[in-house]
């Protein structure tokens, strides 16, 4: 009996964890107008429907763009900061690391609200760019942490060797450090992209006419349950899962 207990618990948790996702994906193939039991499928009509929805597809492109640009920027800033703090003796390193990580401890709503107030005070318009700025704020601490943690002594000796052989700082960074840290840099990028892709509240507060996918989904939610939402939700899930699997392969392939 006691031997069985863990497996019973495991199965119960599997049901709890997969119940909503399972319902989401299953009823995205619903044949009727309501995504609830009984299941009258399978049908691809709702996928056809969302692929033909111009607003939705535009918001999907917006999300991809904001995600790619803001993640790239967050990785660049995170990398240079990690390099500066790990490789050069600076006074107040602990304080600066604290400052860089600080946004991680504040809820996204507050970061978004603060930025919204400033943007409005300055009389600037809301756009995808303002949302992107917010995404960099939340992803920079994560990129910084991941890259900083992987700056080991091993790379440092290679950097020193390159310097002894006459490489200048730019050459050291671009030809030695970046290639050696590529797995961590790529992992940071993918993680940022995943978070930006899913992020709602900052995008909601800081965009107006051009919106990202989660914001568009949010406005669709007002009409209640619909198989269309299931279909787009399933696609969003598929993209996230693909990114996470890429991350998994990048981070753990070496260890396996």
């Amino acid at each position, binding site marked *: 009996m006691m031997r069985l207990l*863990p497996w019973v*618990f*495991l199965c119960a*948790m599997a049901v*709890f*964890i997969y119940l*909503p*996702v399972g*319902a*989401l994906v299953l*009823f995205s193939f619903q044949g009727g107008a309501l*995504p*609830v*039991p*009984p299941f009258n499928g399978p049908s691809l009509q709702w996928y056809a429907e969302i692929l033909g929805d111009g607003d939705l597809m535009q918001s999907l492109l917006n999300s991809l763009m904001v995600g790619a640009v803001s993640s790239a920027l967050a990785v660049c*800033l995170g990398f*240079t*900061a990690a390099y*500066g*703090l790990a*490789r*050069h*003796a*600076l006074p107040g390193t602990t304080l*600066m*690391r604290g*400052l*860089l*990580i*600080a*946004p991680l*401890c*504040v*809820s*996204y*709503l*507050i*970061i978004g*609200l*603060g*930025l919204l*107030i*400033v943007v409005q*005070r300055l009389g600037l318009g809301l756009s995808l760019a303002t949302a992107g700025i917010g995404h960099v*704020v939340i992803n*920079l601490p994560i990129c910084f*942490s991941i890259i900083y943690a992987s700056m080991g002594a091993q790379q440092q000796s290679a950097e020193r060797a390159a310097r002894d052989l006459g490489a200048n*700082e730019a050459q050291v960074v671009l030809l030695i450090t970046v290639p050696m840290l590529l797995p961590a840099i790529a992992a940071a990028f993918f993680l940022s992209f995943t978070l930006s892709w*899913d992020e709602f*509240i900052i995008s909601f*507060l800081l965009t107006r006419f051009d919106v990202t*996918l*989660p914001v568009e*989904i949010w406005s669709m*939610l007002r009409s209640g*349950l619909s198989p269309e939402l*299931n279909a787009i*939700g399933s696609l969003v*899930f598929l993209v996230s899962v693909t990114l996470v699997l890429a991350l*998994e392969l990048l981070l753990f392939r070496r260890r396996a």
Partner: protein
Amino acid sequence: MTVSRDTLRGWGFAAPALLWTLAFFVVPFAVMAAMSLATLEGRTLIWGLHFDNYRALAEKAYLWRAVLVSVEITLTVTLLSVCLAYPLAWIIAFRVPQRFQRLALLLAILPFWTSYVVRSYAWLLVLAREGVVNKALLTLGLIAEPITLANTRFATVTGFVHFFTMLLTLTIFANLIQLSPNYRRAAMDLGASAFQTFRHVVLPLTLPGIVTGAFLTFVLCIGDYITPQILGGNTELTVPQVIMVQLGRRADFPLAAALAIVLMGIVTLAYLACARWLRLDRI
């Protein structure tokens, strides 16, 4: 005092990220804090040292109520999530054969990566009056009428617990596998029962991981707008919901800012309560 070229170069590398954080995080935060001390007269904003917003918080029952609801929900969610995640992480770390471990962990937290909005919507699908749970219970003959599950605190808590159980499983698992098996072996050799080993050896050693995860849960849960809005409906409002109402319907930025500051205050209190075990640089 001369600054060495090396130091200067280091500053050069660190500066862009620091400036970004300063310009788009610290400054907005400061402006928001100042805004919480401003006041609205009609539609004009008056800067200054007014404490009207904070006074309103103490005097207006619905604001105070929102703070209470938020704290109650967050504490319930944190506690439930830890209680579900710990055994799950334990089983994956110690019961699942080594070669399937990463796979099991990956599967256990895969839906964690569904978009936040989509995940709440998916729970609505399960909990709605016509939803999966009600249909299943009706078919089984366990209930005669559909029961109200959605648009309640129960729904909000379920949605949150689902998300944070996965998050905590990840952090606690990371903690458990770092534990050398020698500690447990030694305790067993010295005659401790399985429970005693857990109570006196494993639990204290994994406490920092639990607290770090629980703190993360607390911060993310209390600041979240989506889950209570989609699953809880408008029956009882949490602080983020009230903030959004102030922004959307009334454009009362000062009150919204004050509520955000209160939210920060609660998180700071939670941080102080956990400070002994927390090392945020580990997150």
